[in-house]
């Protein structure tokens, strides 16, 4: 029988549920399982109610599940808040003082076992061990993973944590509950344990990124933290800027000087970066920004997810200029899209914004497909030195709008650029004809940019009905389509990853010939607005979720079924 189990661990911030999740993921990976883990936490350092939800399967996992098999209560409120999510045959694991032991409730004194192991702080390790024991994992495999985790760090800490594992496993041996008997033999892992933050950072490194500048902001900070870790292995300057205004202008400065550079932020920080984006646009300096969306406006919901910045990104910064807006669909796609972003920014000398979100950045999963470095990922060498350097014009008018880009102080030719409107040689100018020529020069790039765009991802596009979605919701929508098809609905999906320039033709062909429902994680249907404006198509209905939580497959299935079936 197919394995599909969900474990939910709730605790206060600071109780280490992240560590529990991390251990569970590692053990799952070593046992050859697929998994997907989401974090749900409040914007606070201590206390509150947070949870980690891990779905384990023997086949690739696309989305989190709502129904829980094992609910672990570390904070005394998890049970009350999530008991309705528990399956009929599900199990609650809690502390003895929280719930009397009964059928389906197992009480374990995590604190006592942790203290016995030598440190109360190992409660999380005890909890992880009990979970794994209940799921039928072997103590040997668990000890191996914990041992590896602490290897070379602190021998005492390692010994204490190994004792905590032992305590966790022993506590179950005396219990009557048999748990789930999965096969937990150590196997060749079926992929890598990755999250979106890590694949984005890896993608940047694969594209030869040499500078990162950022100002901390959830949920983008994780991306820069990953970049900092990679900077231990690959030459890179990663600097925490004083604000997002500095961050975006620093990376523009680096790009101007000839190095690929990255900044990442969330909506509020991106709002500040819009000014700098304009400078990159008019000086035709490549610029790559990651906007990891969270619900707004203003501070909004700092640690939650959404897709509310699509139209903002499309129009960010004053006046008009060409740009790319890309929205990767999965953790693995983040790697490819990041490399493309650098390649496109360099090729067309325009800003590129990657729209990701809290869900995509923080979701950890087993990525089975191999991350492949694109042949296009290599940074472009500047053109050959000119025979007469004095004739060089940074903004020379060309047929395709792209001018040869030299780097300052790398040849005799002088590189002059300004945020003012300028003549081809880079000096400011208010001339009317020149202004027209420069606006047209920049916009001339658009047709070729449009050719670069990946068509939407299609799944059963021949169906009568289609769900139309974009970005990180790919996995959830795809799973919903599969469930609906099992329920005999004639439905497929069209999923956009390259948002701007909009890949018009393939969309027009499909959307004008099918009935379709818009699925977005915002309240007004921003993709719908784009489709209406650009290709004049209207959906038969819409499903919006804007509560800041990951798109719920069950809810999506229900609403789509109601709309189609009715």
């Amino acid at each position: 029988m197919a394995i599909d189990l969900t474990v939910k661990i709730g605790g206060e911030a600071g109780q280490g549920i992240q560590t529990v999740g991390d251990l569970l993921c590692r053990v799952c990976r070593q046992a050859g399982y697929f998994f997907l883990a989401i974090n749900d936490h409040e914007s606070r350092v201590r206390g509150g109610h947070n949870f980690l939800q891990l779905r384990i399967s023997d086949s690739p996992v696309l989305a989190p599940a709502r129904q829980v098999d094992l609910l672990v209560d570390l904070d005394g409120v998890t049970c009350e808040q999530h008991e309705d999510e528990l399956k009929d045959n599900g199990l609650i694991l809690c502390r003895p003082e929280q719930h009397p032991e009964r059928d389906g409730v197992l009480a374990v004194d995590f604190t006592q076992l942790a203290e016995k192991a030598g440190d109360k702080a190992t409660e999380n390790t005890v909890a992880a061990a009990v979970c794994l024991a209940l799921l039928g994992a072997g103590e040997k495999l668990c000890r191996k993973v914990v041992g590896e985790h602490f290897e070379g760090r602190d021998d005492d800490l390692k010994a204490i944590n190994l004792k905590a594992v032992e305590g966790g496993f022993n506590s179950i041996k005396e219990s009557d509950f048999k748990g789930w008997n999965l096969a937990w033999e150590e196997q060749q892992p079926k992929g890598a344990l990755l999250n979106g933050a890590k694949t984005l950072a890896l993608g940047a490194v694969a594209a030869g990124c040499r500078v990162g500048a950022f100002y901390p902001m959830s949920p983008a900070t994780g991306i820069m933290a990953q970049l900092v870790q990679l900077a231990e292995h690959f030459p890179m300057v990663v600097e925490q800027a004083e604000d997002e205004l500095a961050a975006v202008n620093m990376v523009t400065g680096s790009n101007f000087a000839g190095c690929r550079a990255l900044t990442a932020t969330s909506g509020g920080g991106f709002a500040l970066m819009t000014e700098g984006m304009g400078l990159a646009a008019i000086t035709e300096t490549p610029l790559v920004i990651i906007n990891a969306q969270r619900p707004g406006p203003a501070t909004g919901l700092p640690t939650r997810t959404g897709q509310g910045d699509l139209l903002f990104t499309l129009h960010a910064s004053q006046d008009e200029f060409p740009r790319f807006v890309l929205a990767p669909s999965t953790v693995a796609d983040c790697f490819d899209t990041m490399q493309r972003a650098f390649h496109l920014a360099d090729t067309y000398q325009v800003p590129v914004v990657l729209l990701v979100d809290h869900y995509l950045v923080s979701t950890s999963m087993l990525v089975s497909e191999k991350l492949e470095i694109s042949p296009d990922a290599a940074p472009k060498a500047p053109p050959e030195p000119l025979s007469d350097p004095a004739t060089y014009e940074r903004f020379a008018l060309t047929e395709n709008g792209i001018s040869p880009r030299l780097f300052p102080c790398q040849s005799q030719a002088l590189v002059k650029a300004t945020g003012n409107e300028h003549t081809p040689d880079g000096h400011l100018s208010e001339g009317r004809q020149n202004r027209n020529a420069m606006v047209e020069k920049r916009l001339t790039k658009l047709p070729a940019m449009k050719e670069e765009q990946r068509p939407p991802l299609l799944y059963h596009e021949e169906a009568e009905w289609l769900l139309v979605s974009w970005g990180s919701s790919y996995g959830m929508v795809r799973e919903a389509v599969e469930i609906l098809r099992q329920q005999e609905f004639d439905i497929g999906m069209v999923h956009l990853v390259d948002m701007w320039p909009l890949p018009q033709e393939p969309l027009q062909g499909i959307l004008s010939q099918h009935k379709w429902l818009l699925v977005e994680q915002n309240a007004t249907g921003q993709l719908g607005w784009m489709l209406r404006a650009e290709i004049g198509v209207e959906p038969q209905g819409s499903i919006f979720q804007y509560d800041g939580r990951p798109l719920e497959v069950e809810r999506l299935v229900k609403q789509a079924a109601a709309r189609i079936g009715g």
Partner: protein
Amino acid sequence: MPTIKDYSNNFENKWCPGCGNFGILQAMKKAFVAQDLSPHELLIISGIGQAGKTPHFLECNFMHTLHGRALAVASGAKFANHELNVVVNSGDGDCYGEGGNHFIHAIRRNLDLTLLVHNNQIYGLTKGQASPTTEEEMITSIQSHGVLNRPMRPLAVALSLGAGFVARGFSGQPEELSQLIQAGMDYKGFSLIDILQPCVSFNHLNTAAWYKERIVDVTSLEHDTQDRQAALQLAMEWDERIPTGILFQQDEDDFTTRNPWLQQGPMLHREYKPEKIKNYIDGLYE
């Protein structure tokens, strides 16, 4: 050897006749020639305002950026290639107002670049509003009952942030100013040169004569340029006399020296090695 002529171009200069910027431009050219720098070996990053336009009137590499952001762009250029000779032209409104936060943190970051602040104590390009250094009670078109805010003392701010090179020049003394710019460029780290300049159109209080009456060369005073506290006292002096010259200079490790990667050479020249990245990724699947 480069000459002053190498740095001159025909681009139409729209500064007002008598503007202090002309003295600064002259001092810059002199300094670059004295540094034996050819135009293609120099990168100027500037902000917005009349000072921000400076590089247009010079032959060199430049990026004329955004209001307040010149230091951020310059910092990024230095991350990419710390061998660049970077000079930043900014003004009192650009650097101490709009770019105040970048000013503070560029000092802390201590990249090896030279910041020239054309400080005429007024907004020129937007026609005469108060800047962070405008005198209290001065009447402007916007501050029609006089400026109510206290003026900023930028050199004191820089000193309090641990700046290693803090100087003040005067546009009416291009020779001395040129020496200061050279000293700033020689200094390995962040160097600030605040340059007093008259604005002939909008500041009728702090005129060339007003400055001349007050400025006093710091070398004529009993002052130890390694004494930060003494320099702070001088930096706070204003109404009676205004010390010019190098107020403080001390060697410190700059950003590049503190970064192990940059010790191996500029980022710009690092080879792209996809096989090394591939090996790292392969390791994640083992």
